[in-house]
């Protein structure tokens, strides 16, 4: 049995479609990433899976329980950490934790083991009001509160948005440890670079799943060859390259251009010649393996 299984989920906000025919399967004990830009429908999908909202069509189960019919049973076994920090700012760290433990009919003491590793980092500030914590500590507290009742599935909606790079990598290490304790983690993020840290992922855009699989599977399914072009006068170059025959796409990627070409229609020498022809002699060009973002752009462009 899959831990999460949803099929054919659609949801409209009035006339605006938010989700269109979403189907996903998540295995027990894996970190499943939902990757997509802002407004892709990630939070809507979360709200449907965590029983906060009803889908217009489609069905789903979590640990075999129906997300509509068995919503009250599901709420006992899931942990949910919404995107925004949403704990009580005027209660202390310890009080927040105890409050959420009590809501699940448990106590902090009973489940201390499951949160010990994370909680020990904020324990010295136990008596401090949650509103007075730093961003990273707030996030740790929110994670503790979502874990304090030993959930089987943990839903994290954009947990790393607005968090600095160090805290982000630390956070993913924590997720790894949580996964090792047997909890299934369903996490969404707008950051493509976090995708490789997931066991499996689904890419979502404008309410549609455009690709799913392990990061390796997604990368190996990339159908084109990819070049990185850096230096020279980038913007005119970008326009020229986009109109070159055999070039599928060309996007600016930080300080370089990522150029995808169809090896059956053109080749490296032809593209090189085109660049030289336009007076961009000093370009550094090398062949690269695609990242998740390249795959996303390719799939999104389809």
């Amino acid at each position, binding site marked *: 049995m899959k831990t999460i299984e949803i099929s054919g989920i659609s949801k409209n906000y009035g006339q605006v479609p938010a989700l269109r025919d979403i189907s996903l399967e998540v295995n027990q004990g894996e970190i499943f990433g939902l990757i997509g830009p802002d407004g892709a429908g990630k939070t809507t999908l979360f709200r449907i899976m965590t029983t906060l909202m009803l889908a217009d069509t489609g069905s789903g189960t979590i640990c075999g329980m129906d997300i509509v019919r068995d919503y009250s049973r599901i709420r006992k076994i899931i942990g949910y950490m*919404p995107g925004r*920090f949403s704990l*009580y700012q*005027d*209660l202390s760290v310890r009080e927040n934790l105890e*409050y959420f433990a009590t809501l*699940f*009919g448990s106590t902090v003491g009973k489940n201390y083991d499951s949160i010990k590793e994370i909680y020990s980092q904020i324990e010295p500030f136990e008596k401090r009001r949650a509103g007075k914590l730093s961003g990273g500590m707030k996030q740790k507290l929110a994670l503790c509160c979502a874990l304090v009742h030993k959930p089987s599935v943990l839903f994290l909606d954009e947990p790393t948005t607005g968090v600095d790079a160090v805290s982000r990598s630390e956070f993913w290490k924590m997720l790894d440890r949580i996964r090792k304790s047997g909890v299934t983690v369903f996490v969404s993020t707008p950051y493509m670079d976090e995708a490789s840290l997931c066991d499996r992922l689904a890419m979502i855009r404008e309410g549609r799943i455009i690709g799913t699989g392990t990061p390796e599977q997604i990368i190996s399914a990339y159908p084109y060859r990819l070049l990185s072009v850096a230096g020279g006068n980038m913007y005119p170059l970008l326009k020229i390259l986009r109109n070159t025959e055999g070039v599928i796409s060309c996007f600016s990627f930080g300080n370089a251009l990522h150029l995808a070409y169809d090896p059956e229609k053109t080749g490296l020498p032809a593209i090189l010649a085109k660049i030289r022809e336009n007076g961009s002699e000093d370009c550094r060009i090398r062949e690269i393996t695609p990242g998740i973002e390249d795959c996303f752009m390719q799939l999104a462009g389809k």
Partner: protein
Amino acid sequence: MWKYLLEKEFKQFFRDPGLPKMALAFPVLMMLVFPFAVSMDIRNINLAVVDNCMSEESSRLIEKCTSSGYFRLVSHGHSADEAMKLMDENKADAIITVMPDFDRETVSGNGFPAGIKVNTVNGTKGSLGSQYILQCVRMYLAEKNQASGIQAVQYAEISEKYYFNPGMDYKLFMIPALIVIAITMITAFLPALNIVSEKEAGTIEQINVTPVSKTAFIVCKMIPYWAIAFFILTACLVIAWAVFGYVCRGNILWLYLFTVLDIIVMAGLGLLISNYSGNAQQAMFVIWFFAVIFMLMSGIFTPIASMPDWAECITYLNPMRYYADAMRAVFLKGSTPADLWYDIAGLAALGTIMVGLAISSYKKSE
């Protein structure tokens, strides 16, 4: 579970920098300051006299007015223009003009050659002011007739007796009404703001994914405010007794009974407001709207009977109308629920509608 939910609400309440102080200061302020401030007794009406007669009779009339305690003589002269100017400058509220042949005419009983002008920019002050002047004139005439033994003028003395509030004391009249306002504000609007702020903070979403039922959560949010409402009611009654010596004429239990009914209506209203507001600002606007309508159309400040028919119809939808009426009747008159069955019926009907609407809209938002 319930215990902990409640404990959290109380903790948050007492941790709030303003709320506990407000809950304490409110009844004290209300009982010690507001009864004087909202008093409808008009005193210190500025009176200008244009005395064209300058006789013994005219000065007796003026003395009658000034000694009544309601008037303050600001000018006593001959020029009508000057007096009018004073009124234009807002220095005089009323002008009495005494004609040159005042003494002769009044002594002979032929007429009363004096004019009264009253500034009615402030309606209450104007109408009460002219009544006071007329009363003074009446008193002057009565004395005069007695002194001279003239019975030619038909004269009937009218004396009023006020039931249930013998001294026509506005403080006594306002105290139950102020309790009504305070309790309505606290039980309807503060919980609404509290729920909306949980929405704003996103915490309500976090609670919704827990096995805690929404009902338990909301009820626990309201209980502290109910406790405060009863605290304020009790504190107000104690202060009214200790400071002013007013005691409730009826059974105090009935005050609490009507308060419970009002709280049910207000809880429904508060929840309804919070269901339709996404943030505190929206909620504040709606609250403001209701608060003003409730107060002005409740009969607390102006009698409902003097409103036009259509406005009177609107007051039937106002829970504060029934609550204020009942509280005043129990406090001043000693009425029992049997006497006030219509107030009970009104509150019960509104309560059923409000709570019903609140619950159905609440379920929809799920």
